[in-house]
Protein backbone atom coordinates (compact mmCIF):
# COMPACT_ATOMS: atom_id res chain seq x y z
CA UNK A 1 0.00 0.00 0.00
CA UNK A 2 1.26 3.40 -0.93
CA UNK A 3 1.89 6.00 1.73
CA UNK A 4 -0.25 9.11 1.87
CA UNK A 5 2.65 11.51 1.44
CA UNK A 6 3.48 12.36 -2.18
CA UNK A 7 7.14 12.21 -1.26
CA UNK A 8 6.62 8.82 0.32
CA UNK A 9 4.78 7.67 -2.73
CA UNK A 10 7.74 8.57 -4.89
CA UNK A 11 10.15 6.76 -2.53
CA UNK A 12 7.92 3.72 -2.54
CA UNK A 13 7.77 3.63 -6.29
CA UNK A 14 11.53 3.95 -6.60
CA UNK A 15 12.05 1.27 -3.94
CA UNK A 16 9.75 -1.14 -5.69
CA UNK A 17 11.45 -0.40 -8.93
CA UNK A 18 14.76 -1.62 -7.59
CA UNK A 19 13.31 -5.01 -6.70
CA UNK A 20 10.78 -5.52 -9.41
CA UNK A 21 11.46 -4.04 -12.82
CA UNK A 22 8.48 -2.22 -14.09
CA UNK A 23 7.83 -2.71 -17.75
CA UNK A 24 7.89 0.46 -19.82
CA UNK A 25 4.47 1.96 -19.90
CA UNK A 26 3.10 3.88 -22.86
CA UNK A 27 1.09 6.98 -22.09
CA UNK A 28 -2.27 7.01 -23.72
CA UNK A 29 -3.07 9.66 -26.42
CA UNK A 30 -5.48 11.29 -23.99
CA UNK A 31 -2.65 11.91 -21.53
CA UNK A 32 -0.52 13.51 -24.24
CA UNK A 33 -3.40 15.79 -25.15
CA UNK A 34 -3.77 16.81 -21.52
CA UNK A 35 -0.04 17.46 -21.27
CA UNK A 36 -0.05 19.61 -24.39
CA UNK A 37 -3.02 21.53 -23.07
CA UNK A 38 -1.27 22.16 -19.77
CA UNK A 39 1.85 23.47 -21.51
CA UNK A 40 -0.28 25.80 -23.55
CA UNK A 41 -2.22 26.85 -20.50
CA UNK A 42 1.00 27.70 -18.72
CA UNK A 43 2.11 29.94 -21.57
CA UNK A 44 -1.27 31.58 -21.89
CA UNK A 45 -1.64 32.23 -18.17
CA UNK A 46 1.80 33.79 -18.06
CA UNK A 47 1.14 36.07 -20.98
CA UNK A 48 -2.26 37.13 -19.72
CA UNK A 49 -1.00 37.94 -16.26
CA UNK A 50 2.02 39.75 -17.65
CA UNK A 51 -0.17 42.00 -19.80
CA UNK A 52 -2.61 42.64 -16.99
CA UNK A 53 -1.44 43.12 -13.47
CA UNK A 54 1.51 40.96 -14.45
CA UNK A 55 2.44 37.48 -13.45
CA UNK A 56 5.72 39.03 -12.43
CA UNK A 57 3.62 41.11 -10.08
CA UNK A 58 2.30 37.94 -8.52
CA UNK A 59 5.63 36.16 -8.64
CA UNK A 60 7.53 39.14 -7.37
CA UNK A 61 4.91 39.97 -4.80
CA UNK A 62 3.95 43.31 -6.36
CA UNK A 63 0.87 44.93 -4.91
CA UNK A 64 -2.07 45.15 -7.29
CA UNK A 65 -4.32 46.96 -4.87
CA UNK A 66 -6.14 50.05 -6.16
CA UNK A 67 -6.12 52.68 -3.45
CA UNK A 68 -9.66 53.75 -2.68
CA UNK A 69 -10.33 57.25 -3.83
CA UNK A 70 -13.16 59.73 -4.20
CA UNK A 71 -13.01 63.38 -5.06
CA UNK A 72 -14.35 65.63 -2.35
CA UNK A 73 -16.80 68.19 -3.71
CA UNK A 74 -15.93 71.60 -2.32
CA UNK A 75 -18.91 73.35 -3.87
CA UNK A 76 -21.30 73.27 -6.79
CA UNK A 77 -21.97 76.63 -8.42
CA UNK A 78 -24.85 77.38 -10.81
CA UNK A 79 -24.25 79.98 -13.53
CA UNK A 80 -27.39 80.85 -15.43
CA UNK A 81 -27.83 82.74 -18.67
CA UNK A 82 -30.99 84.13 -17.10
CA UNK A 83 -31.25 86.48 -14.17
CA UNK A 84 -32.58 83.72 -11.94
CA UNK A 85 -31.58 83.76 -8.29
CA UNK A 86 -28.50 81.51 -7.93
CA UNK A 87 -29.80 80.25 -4.58
CA UNK A 88 -32.86 78.87 -6.32
CA UNK A 89 -30.61 77.01 -8.76
CA UNK A 90 -28.21 75.58 -6.20
CA UNK A 91 -30.01 72.24 -6.11
CA UNK A 92 -29.64 71.80 -9.87
CA UNK A 93 -25.91 72.39 -9.66
CA UNK A 94 -25.57 69.96 -6.77
CA UNK A 95 -27.45 67.31 -8.72
CA UNK A 96 -25.06 67.69 -11.66
CA UNK A 97 -22.04 67.65 -9.36
CA UNK A 98 -22.79 64.01 -8.47
CA UNK A 99 -22.29 62.38 -11.87
CA UNK A 100 -19.56 64.85 -12.79
CA UNK A 101 -17.66 63.85 -9.67
CA UNK A 102 -18.20 60.18 -10.49
CA UNK A 103 -16.64 60.70 -13.92
CA UNK A 104 -13.68 62.57 -12.51
CA UNK A 105 -13.13 59.99 -9.78
CA UNK A 106 -13.16 57.20 -12.35
CA UNK A 107 -10.85 59.15 -14.64
CA UNK A 108 -8.23 59.76 -11.96
CA UNK A 109 -8.52 56.25 -10.57
CA UNK A 110 -7.86 54.75 -13.98
CA UNK A 111 -5.23 57.33 -14.91
CA UNK A 112 -3.18 57.38 -11.73
CA UNK A 113 -4.16 54.71 -9.24
CA UNK A 114 -4.95 51.39 -10.90
CA UNK A 115 -1.71 49.36 -11.03
CA UNK A 116 -3.15 47.28 -13.83
CA UNK A 117 -2.97 50.43 -15.97
CA UNK A 118 0.16 52.24 -14.88
CA UNK A 119 2.36 49.17 -14.50
CA UNK A 120 2.28 48.58 -18.25
CA UNK A 121 1.51 52.17 -19.25
CA UNK A 122 -1.79 51.28 -20.86
CA UNK A 123 -4.74 53.49 -20.04
CA UNK A 124 -7.47 52.16 -22.29
CA UNK A 125 -10.14 52.74 -19.64
CA UNK A 126 -9.30 56.45 -19.51
CA UNK A 127 -9.85 57.53 -23.11
CA UNK A 128 -13.58 56.66 -23.39
CA UNK A 129 -14.18 59.25 -20.68
CA UNK A 130 -13.24 61.90 -23.26
CA UNK A 131 -15.85 62.85 -25.83
CA UNK A 132 -15.50 64.00 -29.41
CA UNK A 133 -12.21 65.44 -30.53
CA UNK A 134 -10.92 65.58 -26.99
CA UNK A 135 -10.30 61.80 -26.94
CA UNK A 136 -7.54 61.95 -29.53
CA UNK A 137 -6.12 65.06 -27.89
CA UNK A 138 -6.14 63.34 -24.51
CA UNK A 139 -4.24 60.35 -25.87
CA UNK A 140 -1.64 62.69 -27.32
CA UNK A 141 -1.29 64.33 -23.92
CA UNK A 142 -1.31 60.99 -22.14
CA UNK A 143 1.88 61.55 -20.17
CA UNK A 144 0.35 64.62 -18.54
CA UNK A 145 -3.17 63.29 -18.06
CA UNK A 146 -2.04 59.94 -16.62
CA UNK A 147 0.81 58.59 -14.55
CA UNK A 148 2.61 58.05 -17.83
CA UNK A 149 3.54 55.28 -20.21
CA UNK A 150 6.78 54.50 -18.35
CA UNK A 151 5.31 54.65 -14.87
CA UNK A 152 5.72 50.90 -14.42
CA UNK A 153 9.46 51.23 -14.95
CA UNK A 154 9.75 53.94 -12.36
CA UNK A 155 7.29 53.20 -9.62
CA UNK A 156 6.55 50.33 -7.30
CA UNK A 157 3.50 51.81 -5.67
CA UNK A 158 1.04 54.69 -5.81
CA UNK A 159 -0.92 55.45 -2.69
CA UNK A 160 -2.41 58.09 -0.42
CA UNK A 161 -4.57 59.79 -3.04
CA UNK A 162 -6.34 63.02 -2.19
CA UNK A 163 -8.54 65.13 -4.40
CA UNK A 164 -11.04 67.92 -4.29
CA UNK A 165 -13.07 69.63 -6.95
CA UNK A 166 -15.44 72.50 -7.54
CA UNK A 167 -18.17 72.06 -10.10
CA UNK A 168 -19.60 75.00 -12.01
CA UNK A 169 -22.74 74.33 -14.01
CA UNK A 170 -23.91 76.52 -16.89
CA UNK A 171 -27.70 76.58 -17.09
CA UNK A 172 -29.63 77.44 -20.24
CA UNK A 173 -32.70 79.66 -20.67
CA UNK A 174 -34.87 76.95 -19.13
CA UNK A 175 -32.48 76.54 -16.22
CA UNK A 176 -31.50 73.12 -17.51
CA UNK A 177 -27.85 72.07 -17.17
CA UNK A 178 -26.08 72.72 -20.47
CA UNK A 179 -22.52 71.94 -19.51
CA UNK A 180 -20.27 71.83 -16.47
CA UNK A 181 -16.67 72.41 -15.58
CA UNK A 182 -14.83 70.50 -12.86
CA UNK A 183 -11.96 72.40 -11.26
CA UNK A 184 -9.75 69.67 -9.92
CA UNK A 185 -6.83 69.31 -7.54
CA UNK A 186 -5.39 65.82 -7.15
CA UNK A 187 -2.31 64.39 -5.48
CA UNK A 188 -0.91 61.01 -4.61
CA UNK A 189 2.41 59.61 -3.46
CA UNK A 190 4.28 57.43 -5.93
CA UNK A 191 7.08 55.33 -4.50
CA UNK A 192 9.91 54.78 -6.94
CA UNK A 193 11.83 51.57 -7.43
CA UNK A 194 14.72 53.20 -5.56
CA UNK A 195 12.43 53.93 -2.62
CA UNK A 196 12.16 57.64 -3.36
CA UNK A 197 8.73 59.17 -2.98
CA UNK A 198 7.31 61.58 -5.54
CA UNK A 199 4.27 63.70 -4.93
CA UNK A 200 2.12 63.38 -8.03
CA UNK A 201 0.19 66.61 -8.49
CA UNK A 202 -2.45 67.25 -11.13
CA UNK A 203 -4.34 70.53 -11.25
CA UNK A 204 -6.80 71.20 -13.98
CA UNK A 205 -10.15 72.04 -15.37
CA UNK A 206 -12.31 69.63 -17.31
CA UNK A 207 -15.38 70.70 -19.26
CA UNK A 208 -18.03 67.99 -19.35
CA UNK A 209 -21.35 67.52 -21.06
CA UNK A 210 -24.07 64.94 -20.67
CA UNK A 211 -24.07 62.19 -23.28
CA UNK A 212 -25.86 58.84 -23.54
CA UNK A 213 -22.73 57.37 -21.92
CA UNK A 214 -22.93 59.81 -19.01
CA UNK A 215 -21.07 63.03 -18.31
CA UNK A 216 -17.93 63.04 -20.46
CA UNK A 217 -15.03 65.44 -20.88
CA UNK A 218 -14.95 67.51 -24.08
CA UNK A 219 -12.32 70.09 -23.20
CA UNK A 220 -9.51 70.20 -20.69
CA UNK A 221 -6.67 72.31 -19.38
CA UNK A 222 -4.48 70.34 -17.00
CA UNK A 223 -1.12 70.99 -15.39
CA UNK A 224 1.09 68.35 -13.79
CA UNK A 225 3.42 69.68 -11.16
CA UNK A 226 5.03 66.62 -9.61
CA UNK A 227 7.49 67.16 -6.82
CA UNK A 228 10.12 64.67 -5.80
CA UNK A 229 11.66 66.87 -3.13
CA UNK A 230 8.67 67.80 -1.04
CA UNK A 231 6.61 64.79 -0.21
CA UNK A 232 4.74 65.52 2.94
CA UNK A 233 2.65 62.95 4.69
CA UNK A 234 -0.82 63.47 3.32
CA UNK A 235 -3.67 61.93 5.19
CA UNK A 236 -5.46 59.52 2.88
CA UNK A 237 -9.01 60.41 2.03
CA UNK A 238 -10.04 56.81 2.57
CA UNK A 239 -8.40 53.57 3.45
CA UNK A 240 -7.21 51.31 0.66
CA UNK A 241 -9.32 48.39 -0.41
CA UNK A 242 -8.35 45.34 -2.34
CA UNK A 243 -9.92 44.63 -5.66
Amino acid at each position, binding site marked *: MLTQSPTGTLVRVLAEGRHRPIPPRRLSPAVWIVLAALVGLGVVVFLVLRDGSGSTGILDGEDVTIPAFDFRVVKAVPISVTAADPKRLAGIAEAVAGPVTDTMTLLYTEAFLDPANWRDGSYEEVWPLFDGGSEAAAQQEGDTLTLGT*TAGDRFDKVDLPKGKLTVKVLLDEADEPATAVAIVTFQAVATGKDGTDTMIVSIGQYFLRETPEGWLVYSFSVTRDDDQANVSEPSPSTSPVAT
Partner: protein
Amino acid sequence: MTGRIVIAFLALGAWIAGSTLGAVGQPQPAEARPLLQIGAAHADYVPAIDGSDPIFILFLGSDARPGESVDGARTDSIHLVGINPAKHRATVVGFPRDSWVEIPGLGSQKINTALFYGGPDLVVATVENLTGIRIDYWALTSFDGIKAMVNGVGGLVIDVPLPMYDSASGSNFDPGRQRLDGRDVLSFSRDRHSLPTGDFGRSENQGQVVLAALAKFRKEFTSDPSRLFTWVAAGLRNVQTAVPLDRVLSLAFTCTTIDPDRVDNIVVPGTTGSAGGSSVVLLSSQAEAIFADMQADGLVATKNLPPSPNGLRD
Protein backbone atom coordinates in the same frame (compact mmCIF):
# COMPACT_ATOMS: atom_id res chain seq x y z
CA MET B 1 -1.53 6.61 -9.95
CA THR B 2 2.01 6.74 -11.32
CA GLY B 3 0.70 8.33 -14.48
CA ARG B 4 -1.00 11.06 -12.44
CA ILE B 5 2.25 11.80 -10.68
CA VAL B 6 4.09 12.09 -13.96
CA ILE B 7 1.39 14.38 -15.27
CA ALA B 8 1.64 16.55 -12.16
CA PHE B 9 5.38 16.96 -12.64
CA LEU B 10 4.99 17.62 -16.31
CA ALA B 11 2.33 20.20 -15.57
CA LEU B 12 4.66 21.94 -13.14
CA GLY B 13 7.38 21.82 -15.75
CA ALA B 14 4.98 23.15 -18.31
CA TRP B 15 4.15 26.08 -16.09
CA ILE B 16 7.80 26.91 -15.56
CA ALA B 17 8.56 26.38 -19.21
CA GLY B 18 5.64 28.50 -20.23
CA SER B 19 6.66 31.27 -17.90
CA THR B 20 10.21 31.11 -19.13
CA LEU B 21 9.13 31.16 -22.74
CA GLY B 22 6.94 34.13 -22.01
CA ALA B 23 9.75 35.89 -20.22
CA VAL B 24 12.07 35.50 -23.19
CA GLY B 25 10.00 37.87 -25.25
CA GLN B 26 9.28 40.31 -22.45
CA PRO B 27 10.75 43.73 -23.13
CA GLN B 28 13.29 44.71 -20.57
CA PRO B 29 13.13 48.15 -19.02
CA ALA B 30 15.29 50.20 -21.33
CA GLU B 31 17.75 52.48 -19.63
CA ALA B 32 17.30 54.88 -22.51
CA ARG B 33 13.70 55.44 -21.57
CA PRO B 34 13.09 58.87 -20.12
CA LEU B 35 12.89 59.04 -16.38
CA LEU B 36 10.09 60.83 -14.62
CA GLN B 37 9.70 64.35 -15.86
CA ILE B 38 9.65 66.16 -12.55
CA GLY B 39 8.10 69.56 -12.76
CA ALA B 40 5.31 71.24 -14.60
CA ALA B 41 3.76 69.98 -17.78
CA HIS B 42 0.61 71.21 -19.35
CA ALA B 43 -2.03 69.65 -21.54
CA ASP B 44 -5.04 71.35 -22.97
CA TYR B 45 -7.65 70.95 -25.65
CA VAL B 46 -10.16 73.53 -26.79
CA PRO B 47 -13.02 72.32 -28.99
CA ALA B 48 -12.69 75.18 -31.45
CA ILE B 49 -14.86 75.12 -34.52
CA ASP B 50 -13.05 73.16 -37.16
CA GLY B 51 -12.56 73.91 -40.81
CA SER B 52 -11.36 76.66 -43.04
CA ASP B 53 -14.77 78.20 -43.72
CA PRO B 54 -14.99 81.63 -42.15
CA ILE B 55 -17.71 82.50 -39.67
CA PHE B 56 -19.46 85.85 -39.97
CA ILE B 57 -21.22 87.44 -37.03
CA LEU B 58 -23.04 90.79 -37.16
CA PHE B 59 -22.89 92.71 -33.88
CA LEU B 60 -25.51 95.41 -33.50
CA GLY B 61 -25.71 98.10 -30.84
CA SER B 62 -29.16 99.62 -30.49
CA ASP B 63 -29.52 103.20 -29.36
CA ALA B 64 -32.63 102.27 -27.41
CA ARG B 65 -32.75 104.03 -24.07
CA PRO B 66 -33.83 102.24 -20.91
CA GLY B 67 -37.43 101.16 -21.27
CA GLU B 68 -37.41 101.38 -25.06
CA SER B 69 -37.68 98.42 -27.41
CA VAL B 70 -34.17 97.36 -28.35
CA ASP B 71 -35.03 96.22 -31.87
CA GLY B 72 -37.45 99.06 -32.50
CA ALA B 73 -34.73 101.68 -32.30
CA ARG B 74 -31.83 102.51 -34.60
CA THR B 75 -28.40 101.00 -34.56
CA ASP B 76 -25.67 103.10 -33.02
CA SER B 77 -23.07 100.55 -34.01
CA ILE B 78 -22.87 97.92 -36.73
CA HIS B 79 -19.87 95.62 -36.86
CA LEU B 80 -19.32 92.60 -39.04
CA VAL B 81 -16.80 90.19 -37.54
CA GLY B 82 -15.19 87.62 -39.79
CA ILE B 83 -13.53 84.73 -37.95
CA ASN B 84 -11.10 82.38 -39.62
CA PRO B 85 -10.86 79.40 -37.23
CA ALA B 86 -8.10 77.68 -39.19
CA LYS B 87 -5.80 80.71 -39.12
CA HIS B 88 -6.86 81.84 -35.63
CA ARG B 89 -7.42 85.30 -37.03
CA ALA B 90 -10.33 87.66 -37.46
CA THR B 91 -11.42 90.97 -38.90
CA VAL B 92 -13.75 93.55 -37.35
CA VAL B 93 -15.39 95.80 -39.91
CA GLY B 94 -17.35 98.81 -38.70
CA PHE B 95 -20.01 100.49 -40.78
CA PRO B 96 -20.58 104.21 -40.22
CA ARG B 97 -24.10 104.50 -38.93
CA ASP B 98 -25.00 107.11 -41.55
CA SER B 99 -23.87 104.95 -44.44
CA TRP B 100 -26.23 105.50 -47.35
CA VAL B 101 -27.09 102.03 -48.56
CA GLU B 102 -29.80 100.00 -50.23
CA ILE B 103 -32.15 98.52 -47.66
CA PRO B 104 -34.08 95.59 -49.21
CA GLY B 105 -37.68 96.65 -49.79
CA LEU B 106 -37.10 100.23 -48.68
CA GLY B 107 -34.66 101.66 -51.19
CA SER B 108 -31.72 103.85 -50.26
CA GLN B 109 -31.65 104.78 -46.60
CA LYS B 110 -29.22 105.31 -43.78
CA ILE B 111 -28.07 101.89 -42.68
CA ASN B 112 -28.99 102.59 -39.05
CA THR B 113 -32.70 102.76 -39.90
CA ALA B 114 -32.89 99.10 -40.95
CA LEU B 115 -33.29 97.92 -37.37
CA PHE B 116 -36.20 100.27 -36.82
CA TYR B 117 -38.01 99.13 -39.95
CA GLY B 118 -37.36 95.41 -39.87
CA GLY B 119 -35.45 94.35 -36.79
CA PRO B 120 -32.20 92.39 -36.85
CA ASP B 121 -33.28 90.32 -39.84
CA LEU B 122 -33.52 93.42 -42.03
CA VAL B 123 -30.14 94.66 -40.85
CA VAL B 124 -28.67 91.27 -41.76
CA ALA B 125 -30.33 91.41 -45.19
CA THR B 126 -29.03 94.95 -45.70
CA VAL B 127 -25.44 94.09 -44.82
CA GLU B 128 -25.56 90.90 -46.88
CA ASN B 129 -26.88 92.91 -49.82
CA LEU B 130 -24.14 95.49 -49.39
CA THR B 131 -21.21 93.14 -48.88
CA GLY B 132 -22.18 89.95 -50.68
CA ILE B 133 -21.21 88.10 -47.50
CA ARG B 134 -23.57 85.55 -46.02
CA ILE B 135 -23.92 86.25 -42.32
CA ASP B 136 -24.09 83.27 -39.99
CA TYR B 137 -25.25 84.92 -36.76
CA TRP B 138 -26.31 88.22 -35.37
CA ALA B 139 -26.30 89.62 -31.83
CA LEU B 140 -28.08 92.75 -30.66
CA THR B 141 -27.50 94.67 -27.48
CA SER B 142 -28.32 98.07 -26.04
CA PHE B 143 -26.78 100.82 -23.93
CA ASP B 144 -27.91 99.04 -20.80
CA GLY B 145 -26.71 95.73 -22.16
CA ILE B 146 -23.22 97.01 -22.85
CA LYS B 147 -22.91 98.49 -19.38
CA ALA B 148 -24.13 95.32 -17.72
CA MET B 149 -21.92 93.02 -19.81
CA VAL B 150 -18.79 95.05 -19.18
CA ASN B 151 -19.51 95.27 -15.47
CA GLY B 152 -20.33 91.56 -15.44
CA VAL B 153 -16.82 90.70 -16.59
CA GLY B 154 -15.11 93.22 -14.34
CA GLY B 155 -14.47 96.04 -16.79
CA LEU B 156 -12.21 96.32 -19.82
CA VAL B 157 -8.77 97.75 -20.46
CA ILE B 158 -9.02 100.19 -23.38
CA ASP B 159 -6.24 102.05 -25.10
CA VAL B 160 -7.87 105.45 -25.57
CA PRO B 161 -6.33 106.82 -28.77
CA LEU B 162 -7.03 110.53 -28.33
CA PRO B 163 -8.14 112.95 -25.64
CA MET B 164 -11.88 112.50 -25.33
CA TYR B 165 -13.99 114.99 -23.46
CA ASP B 166 -17.62 115.19 -24.45
CA SER B 167 -20.58 116.09 -22.28
CA ALA B 168 -23.09 114.52 -24.65
CA SER B 169 -21.67 111.03 -24.31
CA GLY B 170 -20.13 111.55 -20.89
CA SER B 171 -16.61 110.73 -22.08
CA ASN B 172 -13.76 112.15 -20.03
CA PHE B 173 -10.58 110.31 -20.91
CA ASP B 174 -6.95 111.13 -21.26
CA PRO B 175 -5.18 109.12 -23.95
CA GLY B 176 -3.60 105.82 -22.98
CA ARG B 177 -4.44 102.39 -21.61
CA GLN B 178 -6.92 102.45 -18.77
CA ARG B 179 -9.47 100.23 -17.14
CA LEU B 180 -13.01 101.31 -17.89
CA ASP B 181 -16.20 100.15 -16.21
CA GLY B 182 -19.47 99.62 -18.03
CA ARG B 183 -20.54 103.25 -17.96
CA ASP B 184 -17.17 104.48 -19.20
CA VAL B 185 -17.05 101.91 -21.99
CA LEU B 186 -20.45 103.11 -23.13
CA SER B 187 -19.28 106.74 -23.12
CA PHE B 188 -16.14 105.78 -25.00
CA SER B 189 -18.24 103.92 -27.57
CA ARG B 190 -20.69 106.76 -28.09
CA ASP B 191 -18.40 109.75 -28.28
CA ARG B 192 -17.91 111.10 -31.81
CA HIS B 193 -17.60 114.78 -31.03
CA SER B 194 -14.11 114.43 -29.55
CA LEU B 195 -12.77 112.64 -32.59
CA PRO B 196 -11.44 114.41 -35.70
CA THR B 197 -13.07 111.86 -37.98
CA GLY B 198 -16.40 111.84 -36.15
CA ASP B 199 -18.44 108.72 -36.70
CA PHE B 200 -15.59 106.93 -38.50
CA GLY B 201 -13.43 107.30 -35.42
CA ARG B 202 -16.28 106.29 -33.18
CA SER B 203 -16.88 103.13 -35.18
CA GLU B 204 -13.21 102.28 -34.85
CA ASN B 205 -13.39 102.84 -31.11
CA GLN B 206 -16.34 100.47 -30.93
CA GLY B 207 -14.17 97.92 -32.68
CA GLN B 208 -11.53 98.63 -30.04
CA VAL B 209 -14.06 97.64 -27.40
CA VAL B 210 -14.65 94.32 -29.20
CA LEU B 211 -10.89 93.70 -29.28
CA ALA B 212 -10.47 94.69 -25.62
CA ALA B 213 -13.21 92.24 -24.71
CA LEU B 214 -11.55 89.51 -26.77
CA ALA B 215 -8.18 90.21 -25.15
CA LYS B 216 -9.61 90.05 -21.67
CA PHE B 217 -11.69 86.98 -22.42
CA ARG B 218 -8.68 85.16 -23.80
CA LYS B 219 -6.50 86.16 -20.87
CA GLU B 220 -9.09 85.05 -18.34
CA PHE B 221 -9.74 81.80 -20.15
CA THR B 222 -6.04 81.02 -20.11
CA SER B 223 -5.74 81.60 -16.38
CA ASP B 224 -9.14 80.17 -15.43
CA PRO B 225 -11.05 78.36 -18.19
CA SER B 226 -14.20 78.20 -16.08
CA ARG B 227 -14.54 81.97 -16.53
CA LEU B 228 -15.90 81.11 -19.97
CA PHE B 229 -19.23 80.38 -18.28
CA THR B 230 -19.26 83.81 -16.66
CA TRP B 231 -18.65 85.48 -20.01
CA VAL B 232 -21.24 83.44 -21.86
CA ALA B 233 -23.82 84.04 -19.15
CA ALA B 234 -23.09 87.77 -18.97
CA GLY B 235 -23.35 87.97 -22.74
CA LEU B 236 -26.57 86.07 -23.13
CA ARG B 237 -28.26 87.94 -20.29
CA ASN B 238 -27.74 91.19 -22.17
CA VAL B 239 -27.81 90.21 -25.80
CA GLN B 240 -30.71 89.35 -28.04
CA THR B 241 -29.69 86.54 -30.35
CA ALA B 242 -31.09 83.51 -32.12
CA VAL B 243 -27.89 81.53 -31.65
CA PRO B 244 -28.46 78.41 -29.54
CA LEU B 245 -26.42 78.04 -26.37
CA ASP B 246 -24.34 75.11 -27.56
CA ARG B 247 -23.33 77.12 -30.63
CA VAL B 248 -22.51 80.11 -28.44
CA LEU B 249 -20.23 77.84 -26.44
CA SER B 250 -18.53 76.59 -29.59
CA LEU B 251 -18.00 80.16 -30.74
CA ALA B 252 -16.70 81.13 -27.32
CA PHE B 253 -14.18 78.28 -27.32
CA THR B 254 -13.15 79.28 -30.83
CA CYS B 255 -12.62 82.88 -29.76
CA THR B 256 -10.13 81.71 -27.14
CA THR B 257 -7.88 80.59 -30.00
CA ILE B 258 -7.82 84.00 -31.70
CA ASP B 259 -4.99 86.34 -30.84
CA PRO B 260 -6.35 89.92 -30.58
CA ASP B 261 -3.06 91.19 -31.95
CA ARG B 262 -3.88 89.36 -35.16
CA VAL B 263 -7.31 90.90 -35.55
CA ASP B 264 -7.69 93.80 -37.97
CA ASN B 265 -10.07 96.50 -36.82
CA ILE B 266 -11.20 98.58 -39.76
CA VAL B 267 -13.97 100.96 -40.71
CA VAL B 268 -15.51 100.93 -44.15
CA PRO B 269 -14.10 104.06 -45.83
CA GLY B 270 -16.33 106.74 -47.26
CA THR B 271 -16.96 110.45 -47.48
CA THR B 272 -19.63 112.62 -45.96
CA GLY B 273 -22.24 113.93 -48.32
CA SER B 274 -25.89 114.76 -48.53
CA ALA B 275 -28.81 112.61 -49.56
CA GLY B 276 -32.50 112.63 -48.81
CA GLY B 277 -32.12 116.02 -47.22
CA SER B 278 -29.72 114.86 -44.53
CA SER B 279 -26.01 114.34 -43.96
CA VAL B 280 -24.93 110.83 -44.93
CA VAL B 281 -21.81 108.75 -45.52
CA LEU B 282 -21.18 107.66 -49.08
CA LEU B 283 -19.05 104.52 -49.03
CA SER B 284 -15.98 104.62 -51.23
CA SER B 285 -15.17 102.22 -54.02
CA GLN B 286 -12.48 100.67 -51.81
CA ALA B 287 -15.31 99.17 -49.76
CA GLU B 288 -16.07 96.72 -52.55
CA ALA B 289 -12.49 95.42 -52.51
CA ILE B 290 -12.66 94.98 -48.74
CA PHE B 291 -15.92 93.04 -48.91
CA ALA B 292 -14.74 90.84 -51.78
CA ASP B 293 -11.51 90.10 -49.95
CA MET B 294 -13.23 89.31 -46.69
CA GLN B 295 -15.83 87.06 -48.27
CA ALA B 296 -13.32 84.33 -49.06
CA ASP B 297 -11.74 83.73 -45.68
CA GLY B 298 -13.05 86.34 -43.27
CA LEU B 299 -9.81 88.29 -43.49
CA VAL B 300 -8.70 91.44 -45.29
CA ALA B 301 -5.30 91.56 -46.96
CA THR B 302 -2.92 94.28 -45.82
CA LYS B 303 -3.10 95.98 -49.21
CA ASN B 304 -6.84 96.41 -48.78
CA LEU B 305 -6.77 97.79 -45.24
CA PRO B 306 -8.08 101.37 -45.22
CA PRO B 307 -6.39 104.08 -43.14
CA SER B 308 -7.24 104.08 -39.45
CA PRO B 309 -9.62 106.94 -38.61
CA ASN B 310 -7.90 107.46 -35.25
CA GLY B 311 -4.39 106.79 -36.52
CA LEU B 312 -4.11 103.45 -34.75
CA ARG B 313 -2.09 101.76 -37.49
CA ASP B 314 0.14 104.75 -38.25
